[in-house]
């Protein structure tokens, strides 16, 4: 396990260095507002949603797939969970568990349906998950009547806005998801098969890998990550809204994955990379806000930085390949 971790750290070394240097410069520019505990926690909270979405997406992208439905899945699972929370006869922890399980079931089911045509008919995941995006977006409006569904029980808002030792609960979610996903991807047979399928699906199949099962699981994981994010939003705002998750979330999650060094061609990538990718993007926004950069200009900068990060990563890979 040690060697694996070392490898992961090495792969992300460039990103870490860039982030560190940028932070030092920026703290000066932002008159010391940047490197405060409060601000760091805020950034981590802000990135937690897209980071968790990105973690699920990382599995999919390493198999050379894509999941476009995650934003809508955040919305629909949030709405479903809000309705469940209002209508089941549980209280306290039991209510939270049942609600969360309902959301995870929605995410898993959607992921399974996403994978079905991909696995059985070899259809491109771009199409099947795009269809799922539309269907679940529509469903989230139907299930909510087009309005945010307010959650009556205060327990969710306590959970959703809480903190542990000052650390926002969203950050805890993120750390747990990143840790579990990292072990799953780097340490288990399933993770190895994810890489093998992305690298050469036919070779993996002929080596006895149950490629259909692995690919299905990858979309299920992505759907469940979306459901976790749906729960986090639902708890934080005490409501399930059909608007949540359907703006920039999809693209920023993919950006985090790509900036984190995962190849859209499949076969390469890491969970920690995605975390650092999300962190880079989050820090960038934060910095631009602290230094009062015009919000229209922020988008331009973000685009340029994403491209730069990927170009740098590619150059680094070529350099490593030559040595």
């Amino acid at each position, binding site marked *: 396990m040690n060697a694996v971790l070392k490898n992961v750290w090495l792969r992300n070394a460039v990103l870490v260095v860039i982030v560190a240097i940028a932070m030092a410069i920026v703290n000066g520019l932002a008159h010391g507002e940047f490197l405060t505990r409060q601000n760091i926690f805020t950034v981590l909270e802000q990135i937690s949603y897209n980071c968790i979405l990105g973690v699920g997406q990382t599995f999919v992208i390493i198999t050379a797939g894509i999941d476009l439905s995650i934003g809508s899945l955040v919305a629909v699972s949030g709405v479903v969970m809000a309705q469940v929370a209002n209508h089941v006869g549980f209280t306290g922890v039991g209510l939270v568990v049942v609600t969360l399980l309902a959301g995870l079931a929605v995410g898993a089911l959607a992921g399974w349906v996403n994978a079905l045509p991909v696995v059985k008919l070899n259809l491109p995941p771009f199409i099947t998950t795009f269809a799922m995006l539309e269907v679940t977006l529509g469903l989230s409006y139907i299930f909510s009547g087009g309005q945010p569904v307010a959650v009556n029980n205060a327990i969710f808002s306590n959970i959703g806005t809480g903190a542990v030792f000052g650390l926002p609960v969203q950050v805890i979610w993120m750390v747990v998801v990143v840790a579990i996903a990292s072990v799953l991807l780097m340490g288990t*047979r399933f993770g*190895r*098969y994810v890489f093998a399928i992305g*690298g050469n699906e036919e*070779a993996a*199949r002929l*080596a*006895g890998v149950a490629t259909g099962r692995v690919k299905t699981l990858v979309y299920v994981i992505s759907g469940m990550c979306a459901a976790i994010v749906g729960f986090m939003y639902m708890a934080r705002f005490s409501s399930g809204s059909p608007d949540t998750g359907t703006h920039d979330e999809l693209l920023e999650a993919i950006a985090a994955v790509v900036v984190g060094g995962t190849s859209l061609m499949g076969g390469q990538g890491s969970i920690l990379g995605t975390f650092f990718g999300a962190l880079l993007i989050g820090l960038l926004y934060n910095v631009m806000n602290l230094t009062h950069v015009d919000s229209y200009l922020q988008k331009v900068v973000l685009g340029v930085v994403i491209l730069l990060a990927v170009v740098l990563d590619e150059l680094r890979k070529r350099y490593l390949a030559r040595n």
Partner: protein
Amino acid sequence: MHGIGKSFPGVRALWDVSLSLYPGEVLALVGENGAGKSTLMKILAGALRADSGTISIDGTDVSIASPRDAESRGIGMIYQEFNLVPQLTALQNIVLGNEPVRGAFLDERGARERARAVLEELGIQLPLDRTAAHLSVAQQQLIEIVKALSKHARIIVMDEPTAALTEREIDALFALIAQLKAGGAGIIYISHRMEELPRVADRITVLRDGAVVETRPAAQFPPGDVIRAMVGRPLDAHFPALDPVAADTSVVLDVRDLVRAPAVNGVSFAVRAGEIVGLAGLIGAGRTEIVRAIAGADVPESGVIAIDGTQIRIHAPHDGIAAGIAFITEDRKRQGLVLGMTVRENMTLAHLAQFVNRDHLISRRREEESARRMIDELRVRTPSPEQLVRNLSGGTQQKVVLAKWLLGKARVFLFDEPTRGIDIGAKAEIYGLMKTLLEGGAAIVMVSSELPEVLGMSHRILVIRGGRIVAEFSREAVTPDAVIAAAAGAAA
């Protein structure tokens, strides 16, 4: 080419290599994998730049900085792995990158005329409007040749052109080469098949470890000498002596009435412990499809497969593996390996369950132990188990594929073209390995388009045509002519 030198980080690929090619001749370039043939030819084709040395054509020094430069100087490359776009038609492939235009539009008729002119000159036929994916390997090869000639190539490099061809197609190719020679073209011909050289080559140049060892007229360079020059030591026996299989030895693999239309149409045979059964036949005869159906790579429609007397059901490759079948595919890069993964990861891929601890995590340490053991046993030429397979030579890659299957406890080994495109030294090692497997009681089915290999490494030879077994020969009774005749349907 004079004094060509080229280094890659950590390796000196070429040392002061000089060679000359005259109009109207075939220069055979031979050497083991890693000898530098490909690097030298890539320099000629502009895909790589030399560190030192000069290239001159018709007495004039030229600089070849890109494939486009090489093309404009009349150099045509026919790579071992075809550079065809499978979705485009034969014609579109021929003119690809060089399409005739009328104004802003493609000139379809001009393209057709250009291709027709070359085809006529060569006296060959090619369905120009069929997509490349639907053409036979031999026809795809022809596309590459026509493509090179339509650009008026005068120097043509052919890298292992016969690797995927059957005897009959090879004859046609050699006739074509003779015509090209008569037209004044110079041809550099790269091959691992010693037996072809006297037939096709005028002169033979042997490369070893990045340097020219010897160049001689082909007539004065018998295969034994060539091999000695290539490996630096005599290789007396190509094929190890196979122990005979007693008639009462138990049957390991029993195949009855195997059908998967249209390629496999009712095939029955049995293989005993310690026996190699060779499947001979033309390309498209159904040999590969037979072993694919046994391994579960394609699911058979009907038929019975039994291993050690127990009938097995195979719906997918993992069923075959669980039943003790190892399938070594013909196409290493597309089917055998995950090129972007390490030697270790490729070796353990088919039997990862062995390396999982009780906590469900893969034991990196045990993986490494096994990988290192296989690297030693098979003498895999890799700097470490962590090397990416992409960076290894063909023969070394094939050993990684073999290691992958040796880590399991397979009873039946299906070899599909086990030595395609790999050098003589590695070939001999693979044959030795097959013999070791036999001694351990394995049953082997081997598909091969190299007739000497089928004859030299099989106890029995089954000739396949139209998805059926049309003839069976024992090792003692077989002759090359009889196999060829049966494969082509001439003896029937």
